[in-house]
């Protein structure tokens, strides 16, 4: 068999964006090749806490979240033939202090302004929704339509479905640069030689900037480090996605029963390692202290592992989802800034439309252009 080196579309990055878009394109009969440096979903796609939320999102990307929650997530398990463990149990953002309450109130106002069903509730109302939390919680924001899902099965489910529809994935191949031919992007130069396509979709997380730079495109993106802890399985307690105004932790109880809780020691931005997915000795204790403040009854639950990952933080904490006009044939989808998972099923629709129709017709992504940072000239 001759090795596949060309395709209609080459997707750089085998994360959830790449896999989901490959799936959507293949469904429409497009010949797709996905190039991945490591394993499928090895980046932020499998290294996140599984939030599927609309609340606390910037209005500019809210259409993606609302579309995904309304139209895709509820049927996704059936569509992919894999249990993505989607639960629409709502999202509580908890406050302990007066200051927290102010933060939450401001954010609720912003969200309701763009039409999201979010409201402030009292501590007691919050405890009614989730009886396991501390009396110290004085108030919360509540978004009943938010939820969570399993990032691992979702990402690999999209991958499996794409594979089934005829997409070729080549893993263990690093993209070195892009090359234009006759004014169009065409060649993808890798450590395994050259691959060619009519269209190239760049959705390689924090690696995207380096690759985009090779055709003169830049975006203010940097690697951001984050950590998550996972506990042993517990009896089912709640389905609600939890966040806290103080930012100590966030996460949910998974279908498996384990708690998947992320957080921060405040030192993350200054991590000294750039390539290793290692955890910091101070982060898990910080997250743990946060958990106990809000959920004291979880104190005896055992942590079985901790993990870390990097995401592609954009300066305005919003993704770039666009066709690159300067480099015809190149489409980008990166800069998801740590909250791409929940919107990925919708992003893939936008990306596939950008590639096939030249514009996103189903969902409004007009605020997420690739060139929004350039100076007025």
């Amino acid at each position: 068999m001759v090795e596949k080196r060309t395709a209609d579309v080459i997707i750089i990055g085998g994360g959830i964006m790449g896999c989901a878009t490959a799936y959507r394109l293949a469904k429409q009969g497009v010949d797709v090749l996905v190039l991945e440096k490591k394993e499928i979903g090895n980046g932020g796609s499998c290294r996140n806490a599984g939030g599927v939320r609309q609340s606390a999102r910037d209005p500019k990307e809210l259409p993606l979240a609302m579309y995904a929650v309304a139209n895709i997530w509820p049927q996704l398990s059936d569509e992919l033939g894999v249990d993505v463990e989607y639960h629409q149990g709502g999202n509580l953002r908890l406050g302990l202090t007066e200051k927290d309450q102010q933060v939450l109130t401001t954010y609720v106002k912003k969200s309701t302004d763009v039409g999201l069903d979010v409201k402030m509730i009292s501590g007691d109302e919050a405890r009614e929704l989730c009886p396991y939390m501390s009396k110290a919680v004085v108030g919360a924001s509540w978004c009943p339509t938010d939820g969570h899902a399993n990032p691992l099965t979702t990402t690999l489910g999209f991958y499996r479905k794409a594979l089934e529809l005829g997409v070729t994935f080549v893993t263990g191949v690093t993209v070195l640069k892009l090359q234009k031919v006759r004014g169009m992007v065409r060649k993808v130069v890798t450590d395994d030689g050259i691959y060619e396509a009519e269209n190239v979709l760049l959705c390689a997380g924090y690696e995207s900037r380096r690759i985009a730079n090779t055709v003169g495109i830049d975006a203010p993106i940097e690697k951001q480090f984050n950590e998550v802890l996972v506990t042993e399985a517990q009896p089912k307690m709640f389905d609600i996605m939890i966040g806290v105004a103080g930012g100590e932790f966030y996460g949910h109880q998974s279908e498996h029963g384990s708690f998947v809780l992320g957080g921060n020691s405040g030192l993350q931005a200054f991590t000294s390692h750039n390539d290793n997915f290692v955890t910091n000795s101070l982060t898990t204790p910080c997250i743990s202290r946060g958990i106990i403040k809000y959920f004291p009854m979880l104190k005896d639950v055992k942590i079985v592992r901790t993990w870390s990952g990097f995401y592609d933080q954009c300066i305005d904490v919003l993704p770039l989802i666009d066709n690159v006009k300067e480099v015809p044939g190149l489409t980008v989808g990166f800069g998801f800034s740590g909250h791409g998972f929940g919107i990925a099923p919708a992003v893939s629709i936008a990306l596939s439309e950008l590639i096939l129709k030249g514009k996103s017709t189903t969902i409004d992504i007009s605020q997420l252009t690739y060139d929004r940072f350039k100076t007025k000239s």
Partner: protein
Amino acid sequence: MRRHELIVIGAGPAGLSAAIEAKKAGMDVVVFDENERPGGQLFKQIHKFFGSREHHAKVRGFRIGQELLQEAESLGVDVKLNSVVMGIYENKEVTVKKDNAVNHYKADAIIIATGAAENMLPFKGWDIPGVIGAGAAQTMMNIQGVQPGSKVLMVGSGNVGLVVSFQLLQAGCEIVGIIDAAPRVGGYGVHAAKVARTGVPFYLSHTIVEAKGTDCVTGAVIAQVDDRFQPIPGTEKELSVDTICVAVGLTPMAQLASNATCDIALLPQKGGHVALLSKCGETSVEGIYCAGDVAGIEEASSAMIQGRSVATYVCLKAGYLSEEEFQEKYDRYQAALGQLRQGMFSPENKGRNDFTVTDEGYPVSSNLLAHGYMTEDELDNFPAYTYKKAGVHPVIECTQNIPCNPCQDSCKVGCIKVGENITMLPAIDEEKKCVGCGMCVASCSGQAIFLVDETYGEGYATVAFPYEFIPVPQVGDQGTALDRQGKPVCAADIVEVKKSSVMDKTVVVTMKVPLAFVNSARFYKAGGQRG
């Protein structure tokens, strides 16, 4: 945060040895171990070790553990027990859980000596209670003092399977059989022989098909396998057992090395995933080292030397040893390691099964490999399997090149010669007169030496053999002599029972048997048909 010059993770043979070596040189060292007691797996090893004197040969594993502990204690090595190392972070930071607190430590150097974990073999019903690891059996009987079961099937004929089978017998359990998918016994022939002579059947080229039972094991179905290790239909056989003990090798526990971002590779010769090491034992992360089974599966004897060897390099780097001092020690340890790494079972020969002759050119016994015991005509090929016209003399049924020579050291009159190369087979010096002291019988870690006297008189001979069970036969007892596969061969009268502290619980029992059975009687059981 407390900082130490050296943190050693694991107080097993490698870790303790490393800490002792570093402490001796003057380093500030602390050892963490998650267990309640130190010594790693040494305290489960109640058999006598192989090697030569410098490797603690003929000393029982748990006593080596006690000796190591004493040495560590007398030097003031700080061994922190019940201390679980949770993770190794950047800049050689180590978090340790002790009691209900987590402490953070830092070190200039870390030696990971976390040892190994048992491999498992999945088969139908392997999750039923009663299927256990061989290590679990050892823990239960040798540490906790509880029988792991009463009727046991041992899966695996490597050294662990053989040694643990013998220990199960010592704990009063019945071994229904030892099976192995390979066509040949995997461990030392002498280990197999001492189990076989008690009557335990070996099923080579057999695999376990199923564990029977719902709430607990009630039986085991075994079957013969073909060349591709697949069960041959129709050869199934059900054994009535309550325990299935799995001994199919060990895997290095390299999780902490991986956690510390050391480069890891899957090296089958080393037994699994291991950190890639320099010749001095350093990982790809500067200042982090591995020693013992975590660096590659070997014997505890090798782990102890490796621990010392790695520690000398750490001492050199920290300025506690000069280049010359280091070189002298390093060369000495490497030479000692080299000795242990010779012979048919050396790490580089791991998995090899194509030996047809010994280093000396004697044909390898096929019965030993197929059934766990040798036949008399096969033994006839070997130099220490001797006959004598008059008087007592040793008969040594040691037929494989393994690194071991306590027999040579034990003989005061110099009857037994192994020579410089400790993997050579022992030979008998006919010029030297055996005094029948029995020290060689008790010192042989493989229990392969017998004292035979064909001229006992009146058509009788005596055979002295090592005995490590209870009750110990008494002089005057009348019972049955068993052959090398544990089959009754003739009546036997106990004429002498020697115990001494230097023999360390190995009793040398002498039985009187008819002369015709002098070459077949190798073990004894009370009672039985006489006549």
